[in-house]
């Protein structure tokens, strides 16, 4: 049984103007200890997906359809009280901006101890000992003084280490990291990423890494999901996606990487912008920006179909595959 199995997940936001669907028909699986990247432009629905896995979408959002099976248990249908025993315990989440993630008026120690004591019946003293141990694991300098400090006394990089330490407190099976390095200094980004990989590997923790950065994804993850306007448009082993992307959107993302541009050349941005959720074009949501549109693209939403080692949702790819099958 996979550690996590998401089936046909649909998430909506009930707004005054009517409800919008932020995630449609999302399905994927994650094995124990596996590292999965989720990439896509801003607004693609990556964060919403991360939050819906731990069933923590803020009002007015709600899971409309589908299931999130974690060790076979459907989290989308769990009562709040049961869900709380999983959050922070079996599944931890790490946020983008460490400056905002820690409560400014509580000490680091308080924020660690409360998490431990919410899930285990242990004394404050024991909880402090474990907290200290985790701070050492994330290589915080002089860890014993940190417990009594407040977040504002620490640098951004240090705070993110603490957030990671909080994530590790209860030895979770899965960590969802939503752009964990975007808000940090470039020099520290690599350090933090390395730390996360090391810790996940050592403790056999699965990781869902949400990011804009295909470069990071290629270094860190084994599999990748590419999202566009609330849907999965390509999914497969990271190597294949990076080296041989099939969906024009994924190709566009890769060509836009700074490494891909020749010196002095402008970055190859994909033209146009992602449509808003309430004015999606008919057919494929990427069709207005795509260089290879077919008539079919304006008519039907392409389904995610197997192509090589990946799953791709693109009429062009399907058509090419059909042709090559006929030729054989």
């Amino acid at each position, binding site marked *: 049984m996979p550690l996590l199995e998401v089936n046909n997940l649909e998430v909506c936001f009930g707004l005054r103007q009517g409800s919008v669907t932020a995630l449609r028909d999302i399905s994927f699986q994650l094995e124990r200890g596996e590292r999965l990247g989720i990439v896509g432009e801003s607004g693609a629905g990556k964060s919403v997906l991360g939050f819906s896995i*731990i069933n*923590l979408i*803020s009002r007015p959002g709600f899971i409309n359809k589908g299931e999130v099976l974690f060790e076979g248990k459907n989290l989308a249908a769990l009562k709040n009280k049961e869900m*709380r*025993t*999983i*959050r*922070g*315990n079996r599944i*931890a*989440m790490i*946020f983008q*901006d460490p400056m*905002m*993630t*820690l*409560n*400014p*008026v*509580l*000490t680091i120690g308080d924020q660690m101890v*409360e*998490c431990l004591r*919410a*899930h285990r019946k242990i004394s404050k003293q024991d909880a402090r000992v474990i907290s200290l141990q985790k701070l050492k694991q994330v290589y915080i300098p002089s860890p014993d003084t940190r417990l009594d400090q*407040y977040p*504002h006394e620490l640098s951004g990089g240090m705070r993110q280490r603490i*957030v990671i330490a*909080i994530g590790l407190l209860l030895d979770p099976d899965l960590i969802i990291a939503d752009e964990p390095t975007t808000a940090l200094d470039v020099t520290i980004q690599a350090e933090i990423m390395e730390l996360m990989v090391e810790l996940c590997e050592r403790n056999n923790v699965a990781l869902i890494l949400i990011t804009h950065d295909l470069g990071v994804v290629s270094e860190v993850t084994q599999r990748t999901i590419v999202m566009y306007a609330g849907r999965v448009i390509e999914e497969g082993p990271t190597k294949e996606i990076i080296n041989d992307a099939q969906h024009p959107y994924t190709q566009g993302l890769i060509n836009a990487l700074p490494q891909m541009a020749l010196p002095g050349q402008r970055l190859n941005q994909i033209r146009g912008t992602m449509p808003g959720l309430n004015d999606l074009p008919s057919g494929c949501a990427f069709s207005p920006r795509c260089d290879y549109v077919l008539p079919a693209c304006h008519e039907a939403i392409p389904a995610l179909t197997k192509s090589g080692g990946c799953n791709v949702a693109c009429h062009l790819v399907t058509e090419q595959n059909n042709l090559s099958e006929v030729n054989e």
Partner: protein
Amino acid sequence: MFAFLIRRLFQALVVMFVISIISFSIQDNLGDPLREMLGQSVSEEQRQAMRDEMGLNDPFLTQYGRFLGKAVQGDLGTSYFFKEPALDVILKKLPATLELVFGATLIIIVFSVPLGIYSAINPQSIFSKIIMGVSTIGISVPVFLTAIGLIYVFAIELGWMPAFGRGETFQITENLDTALLTADGLHHLILPSFTLASIMLPLFIRLIRSEMMEVLQSEYIKFAWAKGISPWRVYFLHAFKNTMLPVITVGGVQIGTMVAYTILTETVFQWPGMGFLFLEAVNRVDTPLIVAYLIVVGAIFVVTNTLVDLIYGFVNPTVKLTGK
């Protein structure tokens, strides 16, 4: 911390200096104290002699200098009407006013905190909408109307509450008494306290609600949820402690302002406090008493602001109290 207190003391002196200048300059426009003291039947010569004797004909700066010289020694002049040191007269009435402010503050805290938190957590519930509706009405009803309404219902119709006065008081020292220590005194305190609270209570409920709603949107609250800790802890520790920061700042100023509103409340309820006395002093053109009142109120403002800053520094770890 020490530097902070020194700085505050200095500020207090400046504030009181400014108040004394202002109140001293407006006294000429208040009316003629002699008419109140002597009546109409005294001849013009006698009046002038009296004015000379009291120093009222001296140039403004001379008068003010004389006042200031005595003021720094704690002498704010002698009340024309009571023939006693003005400061003593005021301070004797201070406990009654503070009781009222205390009662109203207590009511505000006891009601605004739970109601504000509740309506922030459940903004869509019917009860929250009722709270918001009633508080909108509460803001727009003038104090004297609230007072009259309360008196009519609870004192006259139902007969549960006394309509005026301070009731029996407990004598602590010769010059210091309090209504807080007798059952009758507390009974008398209820209606005036609610009246005084009625202005600020809706403001505080709304303030707490809006601040809390904002805090609940923040990343650290989302992170707290993601840690799987209990809702109780998220709301009352993580969110409430952050909500309190702006509320303390605004609230401190408002409690200072409440002292001003006591004038109205005390008058309607014949509550023998400073505000009631002040209004009488204005009617009698008892200038030293008026000036003394304004200075004492100024001092109360400075003290509450200092307390608020101390509490704020205590709750907010990112603030260090310094002399800067």
